[in-house]
């Protein structure tokens, strides 16, 4: 019974996606109804996931799925983050598409298909099911990026993303093939058993896992593979960018952590590699972010920096007793901050997203003090200022790095976090210390505004959660 319950959120989301796909053939249903339906399905799936809660680690339908899907506390937490992201994206989409009218019903359906792939990805403990889950997720996300077909920028973004994403997918399959050759199976359990037998990574397995790491590093936009992320985030619509930045990263990091944590041999074989990548990702991302004038591009670059912090957590994870709590907590903390800013951008940026630069938001605090305060809370959370979720997330990551003896990484993480203040504070200064030149009329529906303030509440709730428990 618990097997079925663990799959229930996935089933609900898939049912919602299929239902919306069918409804889109009726002329009576409009886009707003679709967004309410998708909010409903996300909400129900979220609560089901929450109520089922955690339990012992279960291999879902061991006989039928042959041990390919495993549900545990980590996959549940990641699933919650993904479903929450989906809910708030539908909320901000509701307002955004009132002003920018290129949305059809299929938008929400495709978004739910993407979430279905993401949840499958958090459960996958087998390389080919992981590959299929990645492709379900990515194919849907590609379409969402290029949804505005009249917009040349969006079309260019989908071209870049699709080309590089398919390239990374090919690396993933080749890696799977090599690992299959070395271990005789693509299941994490069997690969771990093969690794335990030899005690070291054989050349074939080393090549295979390298290819898979390359593909995963691409998906999370880590250092040498980060160039695409800025263009793609810039080209996509604001709610889509928020969804990509949070839910996709959560799913990719869930698989990344599961893959590395399958075995001590695997993890220790890649620690040094990931150590340098974490440093380069943090500082490379900061350098890129400091030079940006566009808010979406700045947020994309700051997403690279946050991937760097999560790589620290991956370096410091303990493969023997892997719980993933640090990673899941940080992902949740990062998700609420980023989603909040994109929800605010959804109703503030106006038609065709004409307010996009730092300079366009000058004096926002004079016109909309509450919205400016909300954005400030999100930015401070991302920068890691104490009473927010971002601070607690960074605190846990740095502590876990200390506990595993990675003092250099911990110190560099703090330095990078101080550097990142530069571009977060720049937006805050623009909002508060300038006279308003724009009227900042809020168009669309009040739903995105409500979502933004709900997310402000979430920032503090997530920060207080570990204190209360």
């Amino acid at each position, binding site marked *: 019974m618990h097997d079925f319950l663990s799959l229930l959120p996935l089933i609900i989301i898939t049912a919602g996606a299929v239902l919306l796909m069918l409804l889109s053939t009726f002329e009576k249903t409009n886009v707003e109804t679709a967004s309410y339906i998708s909010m409903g399905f996300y909400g129900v799936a979220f609560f089901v996931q929450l109520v089922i809660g955690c339990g012992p680690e279960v291999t879902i339908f061991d006989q039928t799925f042959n041990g390919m899907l495993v549900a545990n506390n980590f996959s549940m937490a990641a699933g919650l983050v993904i479903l929450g992201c989906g809910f708030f994206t539908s909320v901000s989409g509701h307002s955004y598409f009132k002003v920018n009218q290129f949305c059809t019903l299929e938008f929400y359906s495709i978004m739910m298909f993407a979430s279905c792939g993401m949840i499958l990805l958090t459960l996958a403990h087998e390389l*080919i099911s992981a*590959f*299929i889950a990645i*492709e379900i997720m990515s*194919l849907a996300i*590609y*379409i969402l990026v*290029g949804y505005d*077909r009249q917009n*040349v*920028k969006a*079309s*260019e*973004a*989908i*071209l*870049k993303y*699709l*080309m590089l994403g*398919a*390239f990374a*997918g*090919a*690396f993933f*399959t*080749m890696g*799977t*093939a*090599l690992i*299959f*050759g070395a271990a*005789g*199976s*693509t299941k994490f359990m069997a690969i771990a058993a093969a690794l335990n037998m030899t005690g070291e990574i054989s050349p074939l397995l080393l090549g295979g896992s390298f290819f898979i790491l390359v593909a995963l590093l691409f998906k999370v936009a880590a250092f040498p593979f980060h*160039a*695409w*992320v*800025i*263009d793609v985030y*810039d*080209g996509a619509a604001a709610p889509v960018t928020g969804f990509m930045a949070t839910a996709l990263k959560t799913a990719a990091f869930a698989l990344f952590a599961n893959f590395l944590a399958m075995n001590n041999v695997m993890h220790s074989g890649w620690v040094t590699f990931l150590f340098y990548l974490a440093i380069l990702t943090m500082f490379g991302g900061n350098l890129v972010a400091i030079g940006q004038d566009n808010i979406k591009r700045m947020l994309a670059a700051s997403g690279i920096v946050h991937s760097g912090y999560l790589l620290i957590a991956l370096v410091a994870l303990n493969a023997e007793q892997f719980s993933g709590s640090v990673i899941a907590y940080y992902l949740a903390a990062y998700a609420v901050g980023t989603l909040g800013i994109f929800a605010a951008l959804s109703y503030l940026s106006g038609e065709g997203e004409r307010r996009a630069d730092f300079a366009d938001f000058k004096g926002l605090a004079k016109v909309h003090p509450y919205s400016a305060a909300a954005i400030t809370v999100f930015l401070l959370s991302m920068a890691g200022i104490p009473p927010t979720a971002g601070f607690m997330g960074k605190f846990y990551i740095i502590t876990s790095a200390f506990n595993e003896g990675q003092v250099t990484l911990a110190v560099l993480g703090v330095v990078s976090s101080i550097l990142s203040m530069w571009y977060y504070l720049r937006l805050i200064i623009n909002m508060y210390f300038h006279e308003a030149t724009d009227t900042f009329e809020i168009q669309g529906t009040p739903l995105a505004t409500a979502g933004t303030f709900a997310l402000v509440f979430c920032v503090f709730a997530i920060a207080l959660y570990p204190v209360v428990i």
Partner: protein
Amino acid sequence: MIHDYLILSVILFCLGILGVITRRNVFTVFMSIELMLNAANLAFIVFSRVHESMDGHVLAMMVMAVAAAEAALALAVVILLHKHKGKLDTNVFSLLKG
């Protein structure tokens, strides 16, 4: 004999990477990616033979199905791009510079 097939698979994969990196035409790039996926499929079949199981064949089928879905989307994107610019050269698309 088995080794020869494996080497062929690696050569195909490298050709695919080379194609993606050097070619400027969107079509050729997607074809190169398909070549990489099929190189992986060949490797699956070879290893399936090595381990004397049918698992690899099943995995290759899965990859083919996903590759077909990806190709469908890629072709749609090609049409979209052609509508915008009338050209399929990747150099033409340079509005976003990262």
